[in-house]
């Protein structure tokens, strides 16, 4: 047993799909760079990243369309690294759906079953069943070009699910649908996943999609997984500046450590008239400390440069000067965007930096009346709402 085998065995307890140090280069550029990841049975795992982050290459490595340069893939404790795509017990739903244009809906769905040793009757029964699940039974005899985008998506899903795969890979499953249909399909996808209990690995560049679908998200950047966590963890506790900026909108400030307290620290920021008060992780192992970034922060001494992320919905706007001696800024409203349920305010600080704040539009909106363009305002926030990092 080598070291790496022991490592895999140690993690096997709750991992269903394991990637171990998986790497793939195109020329000099690593598309996927030593990715290790455990995915649990029955979960919906979203690989989230911008285009070129390597998420699609990673998915293609899982499907077997690409061969990794390094590393191994284990599915249900079985090494499938060298197994060709047509023998892998997993299926993929393609971004373009890749429906066979010369075959009817029924024949498209039956294609996968025809590769197994099944009777005609058994194939037709299972095709009929899965088409009912995706509510496409009535259109079974149509050709793909006779279907709308949403219908094609459901056929593609049925075709991938009919073989009862252990694992379903979905490449941007909703990208080709228009906005209204997308939301509806999202929930439908969740229902089907729960009904059939299949493990999903979803690739998407759409953070909203990842937030709604995923039980866990892996954020990818430059071929590496930079953070893995539940949607809530990723949003509230981003480990790196990149993750903080990539998920949702965020105000990023830079500051230097002035003074450390037990679970707080004061930072100096050039753009603010008062010090920044931020939560301070108490060191590895302590409650509240999360992962590498937190460890990096707790090791930072006085004078160290840190970034501070503030979500727009955590900022409060007021005409009166806040009473607290920290965590506020002064500026002028540059832009107000009314979004129905909320309004977005862009506030320019004296240094030229713009901060974004969102306010819920509840009831008569007394505040909204006086908060218009060119009005001078104060922004303030609680110490606990800030996230710090050192990268």
């Amino acid at each position: 047993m080598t070291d790496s085998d022991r490592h895999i065995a140690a993690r096997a307890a709750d991992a269903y799909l394991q990637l171990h140090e998986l790497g793939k280069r195109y020329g000099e550029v690593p598309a996927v760079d030593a990715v290790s990841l455990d995915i649990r049975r029955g979960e919906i795992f979203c690989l989230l990243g911008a285009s070129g982050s390597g998420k699609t290459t990673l998915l293609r490595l899982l499907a077997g369309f690409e061969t990794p340069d390094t590393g191994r893939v284990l599915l249900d404790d079985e090494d499938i690294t060298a197994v060709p795509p047509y023998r892998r017990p997993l299926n993929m739903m393609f971004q373009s759906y890749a429906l066979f244009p010369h075959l009817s809906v029924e024949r498209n769905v039956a294609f996968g079953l025809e590769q197994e040793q099944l009777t005609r009757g058994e194939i037709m029964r299972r095709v009929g069943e899965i088409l009912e699940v995706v509510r496409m039974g009535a259109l079974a005899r149509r050709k793909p070009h006779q279907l709308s985008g949403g219908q094609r998506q459901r056929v593609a899903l049925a075709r991938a699910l009919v073989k009862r795969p252990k694992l379903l890979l979905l490449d941007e499953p909703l990208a080709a649908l228009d906005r209204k249909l997308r939301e509806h399909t999202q929930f439908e996808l969740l229902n089907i996943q729960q009904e059939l209990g299949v493990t999903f690995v979803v690739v998407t560049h759409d953070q909203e999609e990842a937030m709604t679908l995923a039980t866990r998200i892996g954020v990818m950047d430059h071929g590496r997984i930079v953070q893995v966590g539940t949607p809530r963890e990723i949003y509230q506790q981003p480990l790196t500046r990149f993750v903080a900026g990539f998920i949702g909108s965020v105000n990023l400030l830079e500051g230097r450590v002035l003074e450390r307290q037990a679970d707080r620290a004061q930072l100096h920021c050039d753009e603010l008239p008062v010090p920044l008060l931020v939560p301070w992780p108490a060191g590895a192992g302590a409650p509240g400390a999360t992962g590498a970034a937190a460890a990096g922060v707790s090791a930072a001494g006085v004078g160290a440069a840190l970034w501070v992320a503030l979500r727009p919905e955590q900022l409060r706007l007021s005409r009166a000067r806040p009473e607290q001696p920290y965590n506020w800024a002064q500026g002028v409203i540059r832009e107000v965007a009314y979004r129905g349920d909320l309004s977005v305010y862009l506030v320019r600080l004296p240094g030229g930096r713009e901060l974004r704040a969102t306010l819920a539009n509840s009831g008569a909106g007394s505040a909204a009346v006086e908060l218009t363009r060119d009005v001078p305002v104060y922004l303030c926030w609680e110490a606990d709402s800030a996230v710090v990092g050192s990268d």
Partner: protein
Amino acid sequence: MNARRALLLPSALALGYAFLYLPIVSLIVFSFNASRLVTVWDAAHSPTLRWYVELLHNDQILSAARLSLGIATLNATAAVILGTAAGFALARFGRFRGRGLLSALTTAPLVMPEIITGLSLLLLFISMQQLLGWPARRGAATITLAHISFSVSYVAIVVQARLAGFDHSLEEAALDLGARPAQVFRRITLPLIAPALLSGWLLSFTLSWDDVVISQFVAGPGSSTLPMVIFSKVRLGVSPDVNALATLLITLVAAGVVGSTLWLQRREQRRGSEMRQAVTEE
């Protein structure tokens, strides 16, 4: 200005059509001419089907037509098989060593003067005969080989173009669904590139069917193809039964072209309306 333009455009169109089709129309008309002299219209006994009847009894022309048909069919089939393989290599194998050379050598026969192709093939067949003893004599076999050698290029280019626009994820989806590579080719790739194979086949067939120059070089005694027979008859003086033969060929070709155009048009229309219907249904 407008009035002049209204006159100019239709006359330009008429002139253009006349330039292209008057020779063909006159050929068709003279095929019904009773006179043996092609340039004299025998008003008293025309129109007549005399030359068509004579054509049916002309063994030389009929056997030449049969030979041409056989050569063209064999050529088209072989060219599609070889050309598809070449097209796949060019479109799919990435940047392998010698790809540039293969690409250049595949397209070269398209621009090579026929005289050169014919001459070089003749020299090849003669030296092969001396060195290997095969082909013992030139005839249908050598003509077919010669035709295949240039038809392959056309098929390779048609297939390569079709594969360039081919959605590779269709084949990946089939692999993912458990089909082995050979199955994927038979059940997905082949049906989808079938239109390209068909047009490659028809193109090769036509190229072979009306080739004179190259056939002339590599044919032997007793293996004259239809165009070679027509050509030699014309050299002896145009006989009216050639007009009749040409008319028959033109009718066949025209029927084929018009038929396939209408079929494609109707199919496209139906597809379009089905797609619109699918979108409005949702």
